[in-house]
């Protein structure tokens, strides 16, 4: 019988610890499929964040480094400078990338560091139990914004793609989602592109993936996917924010 669907080589057999309905699993798979498709498994090194994806070092079958909270782009910079022929990616959440690691993110981008950044935005700190994230929506109720995010006292969410595309340097920036088949297919294409850019030596590529957190949003998995459509995507529009290959034409 012909195999039509199997686990990517770039994933190990370790069972994922993610909550039911969480879309980290889909994003892991898309990253792994890109690594498989491009035939780079043996020369890829991933950098895991602090947050829900901290244990992704057990899930990806390439060599992995666990970075301190927010420092993944700096660690990836060290890895890439040490091994320019290796493919280096970071996999980071919103607290990791857009709060404690904002300096590392912005500066890796402005150096056009030849790395691939997978940025998972689920508008909440998942691992620590649902606190307000730099990307939590205005009015969003979390453990540390129990009356809803009050923009007058804690400010507005950070739109990472828009922010980074204000820089001259970064090569490719796109925001995608994984809440339905159409979006997953677009996300797969974007992630693939981000790795291919690195192989071609183009520089910094960041893919922001709008992801769900049913547990900490207090929703059923199905409603969480709907909330991405009704609330997240209107605030965080999908699309390509920077594509230097187009600018060169």
């Amino acid at each position, binding site marked *: 019988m012909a195999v039509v669907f199997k686990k990517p080589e770039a994933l190990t057999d370790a069972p994922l610890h993610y909550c039911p309905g969480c879309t980290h699993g889909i994003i892991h798979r898309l990253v792994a499929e890109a690594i498989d498709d491009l035939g780079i498994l043996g020369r890829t090194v991933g950098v895991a964040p602090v947050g829900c994806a901290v244990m992704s070092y057990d899930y990806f*079958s390439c060599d992995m*480094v666990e970075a301190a909270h927010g420092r993944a782009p*700096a*660690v990836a910079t060290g890895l890439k*400078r040490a091994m320019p022929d290796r493919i280096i990616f970071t996999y980071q959440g919103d607290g990791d990338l857009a709060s404690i690691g904002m300096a*590392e993110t*912005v500066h890796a981008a402005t150096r056009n560091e030849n790395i691939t950044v997978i940025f998972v935005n689920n508008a909440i700190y998942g691992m620590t139990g649902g606190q307000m994230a730099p990307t939590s929506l205005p009015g969003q109720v979390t453990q540390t914004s129990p009356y809803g995010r009050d923009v007058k006292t804690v400010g507005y969410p950070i739109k990472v793609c828009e922010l980074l595309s204000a820089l001259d340097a970064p090569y490719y920036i796109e925001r995608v989602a994984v809440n339905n088949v159409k979006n997953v297919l677009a996300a797969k294409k974007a992630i693939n592109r981000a790795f291919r850019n690195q192989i071609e030596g183009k520089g910094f590529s960041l893919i922001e993936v709008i992801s769900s957190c049913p547990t900490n949003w207090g929703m059923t998995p199905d409603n969480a996917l709907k909330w991405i459509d009704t609330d997240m995507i209107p605030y965080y529009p999908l699309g390509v924010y920077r594509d230097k290959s187009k600018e060169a034409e």
Partner: protein
Amino acid sequence: MAKVLMKGNEAIAEAAIRAGCRHYFGYPITPQTEVAAYMSKRMPKIGGTFLQAESEISAVNMVYGVASAGLRAMTSSSSPGVSLKQEGISYLAGCDLPALIVNVQRGGPGLGGIQPSQSDYFQATKGGGHGDYHLIVLAPASVQEMADLTVKAFDLADKYRMPAMLLADGTMGQMMEPVELPEPAEYKPDKPWTVTGTENRREHNIVNSLYLVPEQLEQKNLERYEKYASVEKNEVMYEEYMTDDADICVVAFGIAARVSKNAITEARKRGIKAGLIRPITLWPFPSGVIRKTADKVKGFISVELSMGQMIEDIRLAEECKKPVTLCSRVGGMIPSPEEVLNAIIKMEGGEN
């Protein structure tokens, strides 16, 4: 090889390159910026990396990345900057990664000043960041040692798979002396644990300090402390100066040891038998020689550019057998030979 006249900070940089370090990440801070400036000139010419990081935190994490790939990497800073690096240093220790961190100390706490100090002794030798760990800490007392101990630090870091720190001070960094530079050596890593890509030929390697199962984390700590015990057994370095017949033993490192030697010479002229133990490794601390010396001297004088930090290790080493006094200046001040001499005279029981 012929000697060349060099600044201490530049000697560190050149020695690191000759030890095979091709990756330097730093951030400007006085009084160590010459290390970065030197690296920025040299690295591009030899195919190495000089990168001025966005922060001290990023710099040490870039070092963490290179160390994970198995290559020799370093960062350098001065006291306030080294405080920022502590998170990364704890992670380096927790992942058993070799690397070199240079601290050309200045006065503190806070922003402090830019003049020499030794007040980061606790931070360097007792951990500094969170968790149970040690660094190998080397304390140069000449520009020659700035070069030699830089090479030594890389070698020890690799030998024991742990970060090492060169703990200098502003005087050592800024002074110029003739130095014989080490012979250049190519560094060829032989580290099966590194993350250089599996090449589809082995299971994936993971560089990590997270162990959620307490039994596993305890075991990791126990294993690391076995390694530390072996460092303590094998790698202690110190210099003894006129201690054979000494009645009074000065203990000092770095610039304080040089001042103390002048004071000892002067004391000897006055018929007071003083000597010096100069720790070269601050961790592991030369406790053994101090313990032995305690049996034959009246007491110890700890000469430091701090409010008295190393003095605690001296007391622990000599097990309170003899009095230990402190002779120190802080805030960027350096004790004069006369001040040290007065401390010696006082311990001898004479008036000054």
